[in-house]
């Protein structure tokens, strides 16, 4: 059943401008690098430029003599040879996990890995001295191709593991009892003249999260508790993992995530540099600080995506899908990140997307290479899955000669069918794909653009038009703890909240969801203002400091509102219940005779009443309160969701491709998203815009490129091309709402939607523009060069037959195809 929610409250649904902004627009910010306690020492990490080598010697003597240097240390010097960075997600019982040292011990496994650390009075002195550390290596050939690395007999990234395959994880709907057998579906389709089998290989290129604030960490050991400030998404997890990694009791650690300048999953890790700062601060008894440069960040902060997807879809020739077989290779890089192995696994449940697919099999092998490790990046596993299925739907439509939207509609879950249990075993509570699609097509003028497309085809216009579709869903609100347990994840998925009613009627709300740009302070204030009937301005949201907010699981996976927000609602309900008892006592009425509305308890049928602020003051005074309770309204709650939430939406992209130059232009982008009830439309719109930009950037602009030595060749913002304002158009975004039934607010989450949905819409659009010219596939990013080459090859031409200056060095960025630097004929 699907419902459309009516707003019944005063703050929820209002486009409040953000509380956070007053400080940030005035430069009154506190990012980690701006924190420097007196006496702080600075560290610089000596990093290898080789992807795979044994260390033959490290000579620290010149560096140690350098001015201002307090010490130069290797892992052995710090007694940290046995320390290994944590991986919290053993996806299989036999998962192979190498020790990930704080500094390379005897060997290095990716370009950028640290081998020593310099501690000095200033950052400049530390960096000067780091240049003087002489490290000798015996280099070996880097292992870079995940497919070759996964084969038997391949050269090994970690010889002691005996294989480069960390784990192979499988989901089979037949074995799980959630659907039919894919193997049978393929066999049947192959022998049935009324069926079709479509096989495709897609590449999910490697991306760099590229948050704007470089990572930074300050550790102050001068108090009874060691204080760690870090530019992290996960202060609570960092505290626990510091204990797990270094053995320092959790009660002796305080972690603060102050203002954090973006994360997108990229700040979900626990870092060797954070552990180095703790070890060095303990050793030297002084505050220690590390702030990375941008190129350090690009080289060593975890990357995202990087999969090879082999997909097989089977269908009746009438368009009914009968099965989907998914084979993934996922490049882990050289080590396992905190949740890296689980990222591709999250996609297992999303490949069937919004479609009624009777049989699903998902097999994923996680593979080691000599590259930077991969882990969560906005969407984490779900963008990859959505790309795979939405590209396949277009491919199937092409093979069957059907309109791609019509084919989708034929197979998607209709709005009457909710709640719907999918072949992956998830129960989608609500949604209305027809409504979102109808609205998006209307805003987009789908029919009109199809006519224009035909006209341009007919006239042979050098600029062809393509229409890209993505009708996506995602699983949000990570996560029901029991589900995480069944996936062998090393933590739960609950979130905690506390509410303190102050004597003066002001309200402090403590959340374990630690924001880094999402606007929690504003949205959570709106929720609490409605729940308690207090002014929005009277609510203060406290977060990101384990001494203030001792319990939490932090911010990722579109969970803050869907899980953290519900914990806040539950805590508020407890506050109201306590206040009601005291109000009844003071008003000399029965609790049953009291009503609570707009912040006031009223005796039904009278004008007798007390505001919640009055109750708060009376409770503080404690002169007169019921004997069977404590004089406190303060309340805690921990919310563990029973189900994920399932936002969905229809995204449409009008892509223009100049067939003479290969230039791709995003002319128009329309999306209609159902994210359930909306707390703050302004914030939602901002999340969608930013998400779209990142998803579109994957399709059009970004890729982390390694050369054959295993060096990341675009490790700066000069050549890792995150989009600027001039690269993007304005988007038309709308939301509609079918309220989630899995939580009290009816919310579904929005942080990742735009990124998950948009990538396949763009690529489907590019191919739709030039498919009639014979182009069937272009790897991402679909740069002008790649599109132009694909067009030449489709024409039977030679992409080398071009004016020489087009490809000559110095012809500008993008003139050299990184996957084909020598310009070989494809």
């Amino acid at each position, binding site marked *: 059943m699907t419902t459309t929610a009516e707003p019944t409250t005063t703050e929820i649904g209002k486009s409040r401008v953000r509380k956070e902004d007053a*400080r940030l627009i005035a*430069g009154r*910010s506190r990012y980690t690098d701006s924190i420097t306690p007196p006496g702080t020492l600075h560290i610089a990490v000596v990093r290898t430029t080789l992807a795979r080598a044994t260390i033959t010697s490290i000579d620290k003597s010149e560096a140690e003599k350098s001015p201002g240097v307090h010490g130069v240390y290797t892992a052995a010097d710090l007694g940290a040879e046995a320390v290994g960075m944590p991986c919290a997600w053993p996806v299989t019982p036999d998962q192979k996990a190498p020790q990930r040292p704080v500094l390379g011990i005897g060997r290095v496994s990716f370009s950028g890995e640290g081998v020593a650390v310099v501690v000095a009075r200033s950052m400049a002195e530390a960096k000067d001295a780091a240049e003087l550390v002489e490290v000798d290596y015996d280099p070996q050939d880097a292992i870079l191709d995940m497919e070759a690395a996964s084969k038997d007999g391949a050269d090994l990234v970690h010889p002691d593991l005996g294989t480069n395959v960390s784990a192979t994880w499988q989901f089979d709907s037949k074995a799980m009892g959630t659907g039919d057998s894919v193997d049978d579906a393929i066999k049947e389709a192959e022998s049935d003249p009324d069926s079709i089998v479509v096989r495709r290989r897609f590449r999910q290129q490697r991306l760099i999260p*590229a948050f704007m604030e470089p990572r930074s960490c300050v550790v102050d050991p001068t108090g009874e508790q060691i204080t760690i400030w870090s530019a992290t998404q996960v202060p609570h997890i960092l505290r626990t993992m510091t204990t797990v990694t270094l053995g320092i009791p959790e009660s002796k650690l305080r972690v603060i995530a102050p203002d954090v*300048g973006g994360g997108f999953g990229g700040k979900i890790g626990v870092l060797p540099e954070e552990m180095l700062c703790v070890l060095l601060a303990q050793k030297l008894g002084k505050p220690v600080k590390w702030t990375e440069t941008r190129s350090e960040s690009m080289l060593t902060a975890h990357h995202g995506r990087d999969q090879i997807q082999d997909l097989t879809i089977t269908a009746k020739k009438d368009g009914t899908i009968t099965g989907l077989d998914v084979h993934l290779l996922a490049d882990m890089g050289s080590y396992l990140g905190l949740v890296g192995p689980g990222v591709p696994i999250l996609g297992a449940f999303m490949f069937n997307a919004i479609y009624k697919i009777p049989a699903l099999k998902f097999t994923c092998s996680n593979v080691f290479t000599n590259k930077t490790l991969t882990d969560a990046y906005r969407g984490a596993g779900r963008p990859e899955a959505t790309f795979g299925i939405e590209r396949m739907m277009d491919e199937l439509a092409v093979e069957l000669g059907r309109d791609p939207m019509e084919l989708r509609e034929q197979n998607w879950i209709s709005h009457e069918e909710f709640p719907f249990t999918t072949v992956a075993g998830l129960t989608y509570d609500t949604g209305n794909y027809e409504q979102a699609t109808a609205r998006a097509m209307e805003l987009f003028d789908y029919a009109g653009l199809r006519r224009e497309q035909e006209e341009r085809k007919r006239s042979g216009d050098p600029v062809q038009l393509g229409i890209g579709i993505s009708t996506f869903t995602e699983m949000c609100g990570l996560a029901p703890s029991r589900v995480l347990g069944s996936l062998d994840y090393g933590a739960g998925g609950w979130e905690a909240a506390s509410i303190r009613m102050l004597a003066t009627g002001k309200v402090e709300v403590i959340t374990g969801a630690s924001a880094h740009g999402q606007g929690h302070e504003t949205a959570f204030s709106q929720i609490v203002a409605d729940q308690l009937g207090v002014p929005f301005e009277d609510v203060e949201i406290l977060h990101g400091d384990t001494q203030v907010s001792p319990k939490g699981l932090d911010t990722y996976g579109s969970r803050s509102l869907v899980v953290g927000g519900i914990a806040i609602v539950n805590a508020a309900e407890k506050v109201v219940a306590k206040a009601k008892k005291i109000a009844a006592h003071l008003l000399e009425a029965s609790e049953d005779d009291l009503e609570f509305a707009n912040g006031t308890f009223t005796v039904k049928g009278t004008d007798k009443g007390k505001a919640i602020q009055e109750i708060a003051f009376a409770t503080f005074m404690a002169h007169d309160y019921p004997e069977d309770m404590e004089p406190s309204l303060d309340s805690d709650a921990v919310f563990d969701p029973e189900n994920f939430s399932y936002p969905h939406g229809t995204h449409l992209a009008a892509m223009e491709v100049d067939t003479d130059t290969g230039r791709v232009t995003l002319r128009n982008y329309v999306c209609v998203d159902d994210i359930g009830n909306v707390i703050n439309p302004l914030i939602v*719109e901002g999340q969608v815009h930013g998400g779209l930009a990142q998803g579109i950037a994957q399709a059009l602009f970004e890729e982390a490129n390694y050369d054959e030595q295993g060096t990341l060749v675009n490790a700066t913002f000069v050549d890792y091309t995150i989009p*600027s304002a001039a690269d993007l158009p304005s988007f038309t975004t709308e939301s509609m709402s079918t309220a989630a039934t899995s939580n009290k607010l009816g919310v579904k989450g929005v942080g990742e939607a735009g990124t998950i949905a948009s990538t396949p819409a763009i690529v489907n659009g590019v191919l739709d523009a030039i498919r009639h010219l014979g182009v069937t596939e272009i790897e991402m990013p679909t740069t002008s060069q790649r599109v132009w080459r694909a067009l030449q090859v489709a024409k039977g031409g030679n992409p080398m037959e071009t004016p020489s200056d087009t490809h000559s060095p110095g012809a500008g960025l993008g003139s050299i195809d990184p996957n084909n630097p020598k310009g070989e004929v494809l």
Partner: protein
Amino acid sequence: MTQVRVTVDGVNYADEVEPRLLLAQYLRETLGKTGTLIGCDTSNCGACTVHLNGRSVKSCSVLAVQADGGEVTTIEGLARDGQLHPVQEAFRECHGLQCGYCTPGMIMAAVDLLGDNPDPTEHEVREGIEGNLCRCTGYQNIVRSVQSAAKNMKPGAVAQNAPVAGGGN
């Protein structure tokens, strides 16, 4: 060490600095002007944008000594008499920021842009702030912020303090 005399946000300073010290580092580390942020090593991101003698510069690509005798305005000195600059106001009203890290530089660049072009089209805004990167907003609300500020800064616009625009002089 070299002496540098500079006025920053209305205060005069005289300091001995290493010749290699960047203006961004001087502002943050010597003067405590931590409102100005650093996001890259290659002058691409623009997070460190300030005004030097009325024009926007990326303070990571200016040496502190090059600012000798000059006047610097940072994000912390943009408000006048407790009144936010119209561009600052517009960023808040139009949700032109999320994590806030690009914001100081973005605002300083936008103020300079509006000094040169008080009524930019969407395209002109997008081109004009191309040197400042943002990873959160997708730029749409930043563009809206700059255009909204432009409207509010026009002569005769309601209830505005005197706009402080760089450039054009």
